[in-house]
């Protein structure tokens, strides 16, 4: 691994805020930036496989339009910046597969709200990134379109489900990207790929046009190279959407204004339930180091307890599959997407289409979800899980009475090897053990790089805050990032 000196940096290696400056100074055009990004894609996409669909022609056309706007002085927050989209957002006229065979040829006649918002902010789309099928997975291995490799070690998984979006940012195949996080699908791959990943508060970013996995848990957020870019991206996508009933009409501040402020006197909660047996010693030591860094910045460390932590995984694997089993019922071969034509009647068409259209993990979760909602089981599973979910949420409300933010590891281990856990769903599910509670509680969480293992794999630290406290979270993350005592590296590709 080498640390690249500033002057040798390619445009594609830059951050959004650096490129904004370069564009404003006339140092490079959007077309130059897009050319640099596609130069990188051409060179390494074959080995990383971060994308399902590349939009090279569209990107150059959009870059030309951006350059025209720049000439006219119309520079918006993301004008000319190449952004990658997880293939879970509907994009008008561009395939949206959700990593599934069943949507292989699906083209939506509408844009997701966040896609519209990014367009309005001036973004240039590089393509749609790879993901676990219907966002169900923690490794991007369940994609119908093949696995994405971790740019830090091509034998390892990038995390998931938004593995393509994380890998694309880590490998400079875009400047920033968007993912979705139902149980850790942004923060876990961000940690494993050494980038910043934010899951905002449930209701902060509109889900309209996001292909639903588990509607009460899904939330959209960015992958960026640093915290400032994260704030810029959140500025662009946050806000109330009348097309989404669970979106919240809460003011969106300019998140950038909170960056660079100190965190002296802040109380940082360390939940004992998150430093448990089974956590990789190197990961634990790097996270403990992060604790010392924030202490060094003047924050006060306080022990907090989240007593229902032990139930999170169980509650999640009832609620998420239950909602998924219903959300995925629409993929029935009748209206769009894959249809198996061998069936002799309607029932056979349904069965064959869904048997062949969905992969094993998706089918497993549909079956779990169908089971827990069934008559006679609903009370014992779904209803009970919903009750425990309320307790988990209360745990956080209680904890945030005595601290400003909570600090935990993002993942129990660094990136594991491709194929290592594909035969053991329970082991796979455990990789989200620290991220799931956030979705159940609906609070925001961010993963920020906190160092590397001896073998050079990135590790992330997770910060959590109360509902709609993204400003606080970003202020804290940016202070940590500035004070972190490790040298940032780039993957050697």
């Amino acid at each position: 691994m080498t640390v690249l000196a500033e002057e040798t940096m390619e445009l594609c290696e830059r951050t959004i805020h650096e490129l904004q400056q370069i564009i404003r100074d006339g140092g490079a055009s959007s077309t130059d930036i897009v050319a640099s990004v596609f130069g990188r894609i051409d060179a390494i996409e074959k080995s990383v496989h971060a994308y399902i669909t590349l939009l090279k022609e569209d990107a150059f056309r959009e870059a030309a339009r951006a350059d025209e706007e720049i000439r006219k002085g119309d520079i918006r927050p993301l004008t000319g910046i190449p952004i990658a989209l997880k293939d879970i957002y509907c994009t008008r006229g561009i395939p949206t597969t959700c990593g599934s065979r069943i949507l292989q040829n699906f083209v939506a006649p509408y844009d997701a709200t966040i896609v519209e918002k990014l367009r309005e902010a001036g973004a240039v789309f590089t393509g749609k990134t790879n993901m676990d099928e219907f966002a169900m997975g923690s490794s991007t291995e369940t994609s119908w379109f093949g696995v994405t490799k971790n740019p830090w070690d091509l034998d390892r998984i990038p995390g998931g489900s938004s593995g393509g979006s994380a890998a694309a940012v880590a490998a400079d195949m875009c400047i920033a990207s968007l993912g979705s996080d139902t149980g850790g699908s942004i923060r876990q791959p961000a940690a494993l790929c050494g980038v910043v990943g934010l899951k905002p508060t449930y209701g902060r970013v509109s889900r309209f046009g996001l292909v639903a996995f588990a509607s009460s848990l899904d939330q959209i957020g960015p992958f960026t190279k640093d915290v400032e870019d994260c704030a810029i991206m959140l500025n662009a996508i946050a806000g109330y959407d009348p097309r989404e009933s669970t979106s919240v009409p809460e003011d969106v501040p300019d998140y950038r204004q909170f960056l660079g402020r100190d965190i002296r006197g802040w109380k940082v909660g360390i939940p004992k339930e998150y430093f448990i047996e089974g956590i990789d010693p190197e990961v634990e030591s790097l996270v403990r180091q992060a604790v010392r860094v924030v202490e060094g910045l003047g924050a006060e460390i306080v022990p907090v307890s989240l007593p229902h932590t032990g139930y999170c995984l169980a509650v999640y694997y009832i609620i998420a599959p239950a909602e998924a089993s219903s959300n995925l019922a629409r993929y029935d071969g009748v209206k769009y997407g894959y249809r198996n034509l061998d069936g002799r009647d309607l029932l056979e068409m349904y069965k064959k289409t869904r048997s062949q259209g969905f992969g094993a993990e998706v089918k497993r979760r549909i079956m779990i979800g169908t089971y827990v909602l069934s008559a006679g089981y609903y009370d014992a599973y779904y209803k009970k899980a919903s009750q425990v979910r309320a307790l988990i949420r209360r745990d956080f409300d209680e904890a945030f009475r005595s601290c400003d933010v909570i600090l935990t590891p993002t993942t129990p281990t660094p990136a594991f090897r491709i194929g290592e856990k594909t035969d053991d769903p329970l082991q796979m599910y455990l990789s989200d053990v620290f991220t799931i509670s956030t979705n159940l509680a609906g609070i925001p969480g961010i993963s920020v790089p906190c160092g590397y293992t001896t073998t050079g794999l990135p590790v992330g630290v997770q910060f959590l805050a109360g509902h709609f406290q993204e400003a606080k979270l970003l202020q804290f993350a940016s202070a940590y990032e500035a004070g972190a005592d490790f040298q940032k590296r780039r993957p050697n590709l």
Partner: protein
Amino acid sequence: MEYEPVIGLEVHAQMLTYTKIFCGCSTTFGESPNSETCPVCQGMPGVLPVLNKKVVEFAMKMSLATSCRINPECVFARKNYFYPDLPKGYQISQYALPLAEFGFVDIELDGGKKRIGITRIHMEEDAGKLIHDEHNPSSYVDLNRTGVPLIEIVSEPDMRSAEEAAAYLRRLHEILVYLEVCDGNMEQGSFRCDANVSLRPRGTEAFGTRAELKNMNSFRNVQRALEYEIKRQQYVLESGGQVVQETRLWDDTQGVTHSMRGKEEAHDYRYFPDPDLVPIAVSDAWIEEIRGTLPELPLEKRERFAREYGIPAYDAGVLTASRALADYYEAVVRLSGKPKAASNWVMGDILRFLNEDRRGIRDCPITPESLAEMIALIEDGTISGKMAKEVVEEMYRSGKPPRTVIEEKGLVQITDESALVSTIESVMAANPAQLEQFRSGKDKVFGFFVGQVMKATQGKANPQLVNDLLKKMLPGA
């Protein structure tokens, strides 16, 4: 053994909103297939429902009109099942927490009133429609109806005969239409009914096994189907058999119910709260606001009409059959001050004309103002009651006000005494023989003179006046 039928009804009523319940598509009926659809009601990936507030308000109106308790919070739930007319694979409905519960309506029977309990009223979306190609092994899906707002009104099993069920159904229909929240069109499916019916030995409490009846698209068919089904179950029980719990379809042409085999396996709909929609909070203030918009309901109106206008209960029933008719009648009463005359004209000629033309009162060419004016013209003697029959027909045909019709037809009654005196004189002069008969005591000839005077005036003479004058002028009369 004597059996007693136990009947409960589930009524689906389409709410008369302009747009669908969860998207902005039009609810217009009969458009070309799939023209009134969008990604939301087509069940595309990633799209989300947004509740049409009007639907809640319409449903609240019906809940209040049937004395239901509206829950302070209600929740939409997903009813999961696969069918090609259900694009999302689930129907958004309400389950554990419906909009309203514990209501009732009173029905009128020969033996007086009976109260029928309403278990619940909830909101839901309609499904689409399958169109089967008769010549090809193909089926098509029309999603125009998908997402059209419905309320489901579930009754208690309080009805004991087909007549009671029909009376209850008519009552619900009447209230819905009065509230203007449903057009009540049964043929187009805006008002649909399923019935649960079982028998039990009279005098016992426990319910028997029930059958669910579907596919009855008129009041008459509901009654016929229930009558048939009651007899069928009675026959099954009396011949020592057992009633099977099943869904049965009413066959209108054969007049029987058929078991809907193959579909009777118990469905597990896996209801759970829809995470895409937030619970609906219904405040007391909102309830009161809606209560303030409720019109007078048919039963109250009926009683008030009889009381206030002194008309028979039957007439009050006819005149309140629809809100528009009642409003029309009341306008005529207000303008004319003659409730009985107004009732006679509206129930008689006006309804007859409208029925002949299959028109509603809203399309009546005679305005309440015109009818009231005509009644006044009868009262002041300008025209006779007989003339009025002709006038009102012409008013209906041409839409012209009564004075214009009377003038055009030259129908004004002659009430001028001197004019009539000279007419009578000339009639007497022209008929010396009859005059002689009268003189000699033949009273019957009096009628002849009345007829001659009326003839001479082309029927315009005021008959009473003619009578009076003849009595004075005829010799020895």
